């Protein structure tokens, strides 16, 4: 009988589902949900039943009679700061998610659905490397103003998976080597990964570091304060602007990197400038992270969807090659990372931590 791990990664209007047999992904789909039906729920956790209907349809088609489910792994949402690794889904976690304690993001459903399916099949259900995996060193928490603490939030799932693979590729243990990882997606996380721990990262959403296609990164603080007191924005409007309507989208009216590259190809100098400026800020942040490791690193790893752009990667390399070997792993490997985490748990290589 074939053994499979079910992987669940809920997004805003669809739920990515996958089945893994060993390391092989045997089925994958983004199961879409009717947007107007999702919209009626203020709390995303309440979308559970609606999403489950579509998910069950998909499972009915793909989960064949002769397979045995061995584990369910869901994407981890924003939770309290946590060590990296696998977490069992307990009542406390479910309560936090239902109460929207840390966010009201679709990711909240990852644990809820995984828990439900785990019970159905009588197998372990886990989340792995949630956004709030926190390995900060003591210095990294300090901002410069007592009222504000820097927080460790990142694309930890993809970053740690890619670094783990890089370590294995050179025959080293993940806990033996250091990396700087730049996850370049809709949000950008540039992290110093010391022996598997994320000891510093910019915090891609309303934190610091480079701007991205739609988000602002660090800004001069005086002008930002001016803006807040200008009377031009409510707090909500300003937060919305900084998190959804900044970066390339604000400068160029476009946030799709391929279209922006088409603009550059057509000779648009403004597009070339702002594209380059984003890469320039990424390069500066990578430099800063090398310092967190005191220059001691195995490689700089460039990943995420934007790493598919040859132009972006080549420009970035110009700035950072002097810092060490650069490896490029385009795309996101969240489904693979979740399955791999569950596999290590089943193999007894990792324990399930308690939330």
């Amino acid at each position, binding site marked *: 009988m074939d053994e499979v791990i079910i992987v669940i990664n809920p997004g805003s209007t669809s739920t990515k589902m996958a089945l893994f047999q060993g390391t092989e992904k045997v089925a994958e789909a983004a199961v879409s949900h009717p947007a107007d039906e999702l919209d009626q729920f203020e709390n995303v956790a309440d979308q559970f039943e609606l999403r489950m209907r579509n998910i069950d349809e998909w499972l009915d088609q793909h989960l064949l009679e002769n397979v045995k489910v061995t584990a369910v792994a869901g994407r981890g949402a924003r939770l309290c700061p946590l060590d990296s690794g696998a977490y069992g889904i307990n009542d406390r976690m479910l309560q936090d998610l239902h109460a929207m304690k840390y966010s009201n993001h679709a990711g909240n459903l990852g644990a809820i659905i995984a828990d439900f399916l785990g019970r159905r099949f009588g197998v372990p259900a886990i989340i792995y490397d949630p956004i709030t995996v926190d390995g900060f060193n003591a*210095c990294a928490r300090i*901002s410069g103003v007592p009222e*504000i603490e820097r927080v460790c939030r990142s694309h930890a799932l993809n970053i740690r998976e890619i670094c783990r693979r890089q370590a294995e590729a050179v025959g080293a243990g993940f806990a033996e080597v250091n990396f700087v990882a730049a996850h370049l997606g809709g949000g950008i996380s540039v992290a110093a990964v010391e022996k598997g721990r994320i000891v510093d990262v910019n915090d891609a959403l309303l*934190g*610091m570091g480079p*701007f991205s296609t739609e988000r602002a990164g660090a800004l001069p603080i005086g002008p*930002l304060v001016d803006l807040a*007191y200008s009377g031009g924005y409510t707090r909500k409007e300003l937060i919305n602007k900084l998190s959804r309507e900044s970066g390339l989208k604000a*400068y160029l009216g476009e946030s799709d990197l391929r279209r922006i590259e088409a603009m550059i190809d057509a000779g648009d100098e403004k597009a070339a400038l702002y594209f380059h400026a984003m890469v320039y800020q990424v390069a500066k942040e990578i430099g800063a992270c090398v310092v967190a490791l005191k220059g001691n690193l195995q490689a700089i790893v460039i990943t995420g969807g934007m790493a598919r752009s040859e132009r972006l990667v080549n420009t970035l390399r110009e700035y950072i090659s002097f810092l060490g070997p650069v490896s490029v792993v385009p795309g996101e490997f969240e489904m693979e990372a979740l399955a791999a985490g569950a596999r290590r748990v089943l193999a007894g290589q990792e324990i399930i931590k308690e939330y």
Partner: protein
Amino acid sequence: MDEVIIVVNPGSTSTKLALFRREEKIAEGEVRHDAEELAAYDNVADQFEMRMHTIDRWLKDQDIEQKQVVAVVGRGAPLKPLEGGAYNISEEMLLDVKDMRYSNHASNLGAIIADYLGRRYKVPSMIVDPITIDNFTDLARVSGFPGIERKCRSHALNIKAVCRRVAVEAGHRLREVNFIAAHLGGGISIAAIERGRIIDVNDGLLGMGPFSPNRAGALPIGALVKLAYSGTYSEADLTRRLSAESGLQGYLGESDLRQVEKMIEAGDKKAVLYYRAMIYQVAKEICACAGVLKGDFYAVVITGGMAKSERLVTTLKEYISFLGRVVVIPGEFEMEALAAGAVRVIDGTEIPKDY
């Protein structure tokens, strides 16, 4: 008869004065002004007569009548963005400082006093390398948010002087090599200097980069916006908090580095942590600048008053020595830099620019 250059550098409650025989300092003094009397003037430019009174007394003490004044050079205030170098003091410049067009900083008096003394002794007067020397590339100007542009403001005078010194000692000209310079004083400027031009710098006052003994640097933007809308602070209060009551002052209630080091020696663990965090942020900014220069630089130059601390320099080196040569030049050399600028003008190796 002794040929001398008069150098004038006004600070908030005193005016630094010096006489140079070419590049040799033959007299230096810091004349104090009554703080209460100074405070009576809303516009610092109006302190002119009052300051001149004490300045004249100092000049008389130096037997200025027995010497031949050949030039007068003053510290340059925040002005419009300018190329580096020496500037003739024009009516337009005087109007800008008297109107507080770019700031109401004590250094506004540098040009006013130099102009006055130049007329008195019928010799050329000038300012050199004002705070707003701006060689930013277009890339460095981009913040990530269209309403906010990054600004080039720094301790340009001292930074350029120490880099020039390091270049000359190595048998180069400043315009032949690149440097990263970290001016560590009450404010911190960390600059990427490409062939003598400051192409990127954090902007130490309400800009970005590390926190300093009493200023905040870059902060997580979401948290800063939250603070601005919290109702706790007026805009003026928050700006003062960020520019004068943050950093070590905010965390430890102390901004004098020697006092903070005494706290460390007495076993104060909080002091140890925040002191190291400041250095950590400085190190990160230095390596961000290394990225800007694509790794091509002759040395990292550490200067300013805090560079006198052996503890600070040793800790900083732990983080950055992998970058290559680190040269430490403790202190500030503004007077020397101003005099050297005047000598270049007198010798005709540099033509003063028009404002």
